[in-house]
């Protein structure tokens, strides 16, 4: 193990384990008021009247009329209203906020408000929507020729459902005006996203806005863009009140009304000639929900991953993100990749059965190698370690022999084992890092020779405070304790970009390393010194053009292999997970415990995505299962010990050899699980979540 990988005590361990870390709801300010949003109860309607009850002194309502800037939350585009205007586009759309000194009274007032709607017909099924928010197409080779010459064409459609991030700490913000400025603090991943959005909504200059990230109880993407919306709403309320306003979501409110993973429908047409895959024609639809938010980028990533880890020379991928009258979907660990990786892994598995070869054997034939062209005609510039990872997983799980063994079973319990191959593109998609983010990182040496890290990336549990500190300490040759890092405050840190896309360690960590190297060379004890580094795109990167959808979508990739073994009780159709093994290449781990924790946490979220986590709309556009009792995430007794291994494959352009790690472990769990279910049930499956009820349906079909 590299020295940098040796685990240390996390910077935030003490305060969190002692219960003294302060999350946004733990903060109380003098004169603070409480706010609660009124959410639309209709999926598509015109608001014709809002009638308020009599309000006690000190209680008031905030709505679109109180927005002093633009009534739009800037995310990628600017279509999300801060407060609804004349129409509502989904159940949950915020119409107004009730604010006052006692939260019970605020809730009472909320209950007594009567909104009159003129209902219109909502579109809830993404397949029936004509409203295309975004579409991208790309191709390489000659797919039409491949189809002409094919002797067989496989066509199959795959579906993936919503997934709710289910961070343990719900969304929350406190906004407070002071000295002509507005400060907003709260649970978030991207302080500078919130900064830009709040200043636009208030109509003030950016210098008059201050955003502070509070200790955040989990994000997983759910706090990437959504906090900008809540922050704008809370800031508008605080401006009207001229007092601090705190808004904390209830769990049911959070589950029902905040951003989720995009559901998808993907149709694959695969050309086969002489037993070889000669081309793929892929169509992908993502359900964007009512507003655009992050859909363009999620769709981009999903499409880039559409042909998986496979070398497909004749490829056409067409994708669109469509509007439906449902909650706007956004970022969730994996960000489009889990959807298409599920589809491509399953189709490869189904093709192998049709052709009459073993699933892994077929996949191995097509795994890309270093030097191969990517889906978007970029290049795999670095070693692809999948073959050795497959061997490692096979050894650990006995995959190959169990897979064969489980083909023939009888009795009440049926076992199955499945395997998936996947990657995660490291960093922001395309040229976003270079053209939009333009990250700046700083370190400041104080006169007492402590060194403070100044970046806007947020530790949301993934250990950035610790890993960033290790990079700086180790590069400078000083002690870990000598390095300081606080939660980002836009008054104090530059914009080093958002905490997304598995970019923080690889990209910002590298900037910190360079800044530290510079400081080391110029170190003057006892003096205050500041080093600043700006992002520079590595020179090997083939620039990505979004218009042409061509080039290196990512500088490099992190790779994964998952095997999952299940046992199905045919009497009850319930599934027990007997084993889950993951091999992960994330470059050099900056801290082994932290990286292992990320792999295990992501792996379990992926298992939940595949099996028990189901959330859906009824025909009125309402989510019915909006609580922890009905939205089922795994408990400690739902899984065995997850076996996660990190392989050694350093990335030359990442700090100490590190590359993107956060999202990879979620991406491949679902196809491994569903392949295992197929092995157990003896049927082809094409949807997730694949629930107990789905299992029962298949058991009854097969029984017939």
């Amino acid at each position, binding site marked *: 193990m590299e020295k940098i990988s040796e685990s240390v005590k996390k910077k935030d361990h003490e305060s969190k384990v002692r219960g003294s870390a302060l999350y946004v709801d733990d903060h109380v300010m003098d004169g603070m008021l409480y706010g609660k949003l009124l959410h639309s109860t209709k999926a598509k309607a015109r608001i014709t009247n809002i009638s308020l009850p009599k309000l006690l002194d000190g209680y008031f309502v905030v709505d679109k009329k109180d927005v002093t800037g633009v009534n739009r939350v800037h995310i990628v585009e600017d279509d999300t209203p801060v407060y609804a205007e004349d129409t509502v586009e989904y159940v949950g759309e915020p119409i107004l906020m009730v604010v006052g000194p006692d939260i019970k009274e605020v809730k009472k007032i909320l209950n007594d408000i009567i909104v009159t709607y003129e209902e219109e017909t909502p579109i809830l099924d993404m397949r029936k929507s004509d409203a295309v928010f975004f579409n991208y197409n790309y191709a390489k080779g000659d797919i039409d020729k491949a189809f002409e010459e094919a002797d067989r064409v496989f066509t199959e459609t795959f579906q993936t459902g919503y997934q709710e991030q289910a961070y343990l700490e719900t969304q929350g913000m406190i906004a407070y005006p002071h000295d002509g400025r507005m400060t907003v603090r709260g649970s978030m991943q991207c302080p500078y996203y919130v900064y830009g959005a709040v200043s636009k909504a208030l109509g003030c200059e950016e210098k008059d806005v201050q955003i502070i990230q509070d200790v955040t109880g989990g994000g997983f993407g759910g706090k990437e863009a959504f906090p900008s919306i809540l922050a704008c709403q809370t800031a508008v309320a605080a401006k009207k009140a001229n007092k601090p306003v705190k808004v904390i979501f209830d769990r049911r409110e959070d589950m029902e009304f905040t951003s989720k993973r995009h559901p998808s429908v993907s149709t694959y047409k695969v050309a086969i000639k002489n037993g070889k895959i000669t081309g793929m024609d892929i169509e992908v639809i993502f359900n964007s929900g009512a507003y655009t938010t992050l859909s363009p980028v999620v769709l981009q990533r999903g499409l880039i991953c559409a042909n998986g880890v496979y070398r497909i020379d004749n490829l056409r991928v067409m994708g669109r993100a469509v509007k439906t009258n449902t909650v706007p979907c956004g970022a969730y660990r994996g960000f489009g990749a889990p959807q298409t990786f599920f589809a491509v892994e399953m189709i490869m598995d189904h093709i192998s059965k049709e052709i009459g070869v073993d699933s892994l054997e077929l996949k191995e034939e097509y795994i890309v190698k270093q030097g191969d062209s990517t889906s978007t005609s970029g290049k795999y510039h670095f070693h692809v370690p999948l073959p050795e990872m497959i061997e490692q997983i096979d050894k650990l799980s006995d995959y190959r022999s169990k897979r064969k063994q489980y083909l023939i079973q009888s009795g*009440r319990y049926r076992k199955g084992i499945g395997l998936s191959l996947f990657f995660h593109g490291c960093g922001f998609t395309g040229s976003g890092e270079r053209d939009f983010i333009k990250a700046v990182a700083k370190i400041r040496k104080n006169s007492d020779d402590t060194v403070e890290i100044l970046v806007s990336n947020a530790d949301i549990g993934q250990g950035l405070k610790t890993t960033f500190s290790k990079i700086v300490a180790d590069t400078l040759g000083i002690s870990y304790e000598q390095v300081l890092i606080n939660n980002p405050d836009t008054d104090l840190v530059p914009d080093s970009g958002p905490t997304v896309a598995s970019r923080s360690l690889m990209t910002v960590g590298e900037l910190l390393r360079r800044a530290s190297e510079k400081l080391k060379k110029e170190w003057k004890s006892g003096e205050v010194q500041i080093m600043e580094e700006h992002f520079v795109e590595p020179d090997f990167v083939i620039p990505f053009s979004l218009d042409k959808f061509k080039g290196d979508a990512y500088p490099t990739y992190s790779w994964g292999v998952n095997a999952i073994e299940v046992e199905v009780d*045919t*009497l*009850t*159709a*319930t599934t027990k997970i007997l084993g889950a093994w993951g091999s992960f290449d994330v470059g050099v781990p900056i801290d082994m415990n932290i990286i292992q924790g990320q792999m295990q946490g992501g792996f379990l979220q992926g298992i939940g995505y595949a099996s*028990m986590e189901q959330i859906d709309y009824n025909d009125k556009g309402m989510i*019915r*299962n909006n609580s*922890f*009792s*009905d939205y*089922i995430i*795994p*408990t*400690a*007794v*739902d899984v065995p010990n997850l076996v996660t291994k990190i392989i050694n494959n350093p990335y030359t352009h990442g700090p100490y050899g590190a590359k993107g790690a956060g999202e990879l472990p979620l991406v491949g769990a679902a196809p491994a699980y569903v392949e295992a279910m197929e092995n157990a049930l003896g049927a082809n499956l094409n949807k997730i979540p694949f629930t*107990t*009820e789905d299992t*029962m349906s298949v058991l*009854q079909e097969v029984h017939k």
Partner: protein
Amino acid sequence: MVNCYNPTSLKEALDIIAKEVVTPYAGGTDLMIEPDENATYLFINKIPEMKNIVEDKEFIRIGAACTFTNIIENELSPAILKRAVSQIAAPAIRNLGTVGGNICNGSPKADSALIFFATDSKLRLVSNRGERVIPITEFYLGRKKTIIEKDELLVEILMNRNVLNNYYYKKVGERNALAISRVSFAGILNIEAGKIANCITAFGAISDVIIRRKNIDAMFVGKTIEEAKAVKEEYLAEYNKAIVTIKGRISEKYRKTVCMNLLNDFLESNGI
């Protein structure tokens, strides 16, 4: 304290409930999901007469205010009851939740109520007017509707000692902990002198009330295993008609299929 009573004896509690509209609160794990601002709670979690587990010649008597943890930790508790309550929710809920609350809440998903059905248990309801002991099968009128009077408290559950052996129990939830039952099944079969002396089955979580069909189960009583096999098809057909699952988020077909599968497995595990 305003808005509540904390009686220290059963008599005290009964006196209060006789003259005032109060909400009995034992563990609180159902009530506190949506606490009623205007309710006056009668806290019965510390009343000694409701927290005993004792046995006499006929019965094992379980105090209604015993928590699930109390039951698990007491060696007198029947194995079938321990088995069921140890799968309720999670430790923190089991430390508060009571069998009394589980029964009186009136939900067909109540895991301990299913066991009381499957063991033909009786409930001892007490008020200042007197007391009555009724079979649990007569306690429910419908979902969340019981025959308990406003001035009554459920004090004890009487479990017949002769029917507690050779049990079959299965809870099917959405996951292994913190799971509300989607289907729950309990069955008991006792053989005496080569003949079936008792056959009791009960199905929970699938209908408005727990399903118990004494008349169908009676088809096996007095028969040998071989004789029982001869009427098995008819028995299953009768249950196929009797098990009507109500509409819910989980498909009726799924729940019905699981019920029939478990019932069949219960029979097969007894050689039928």
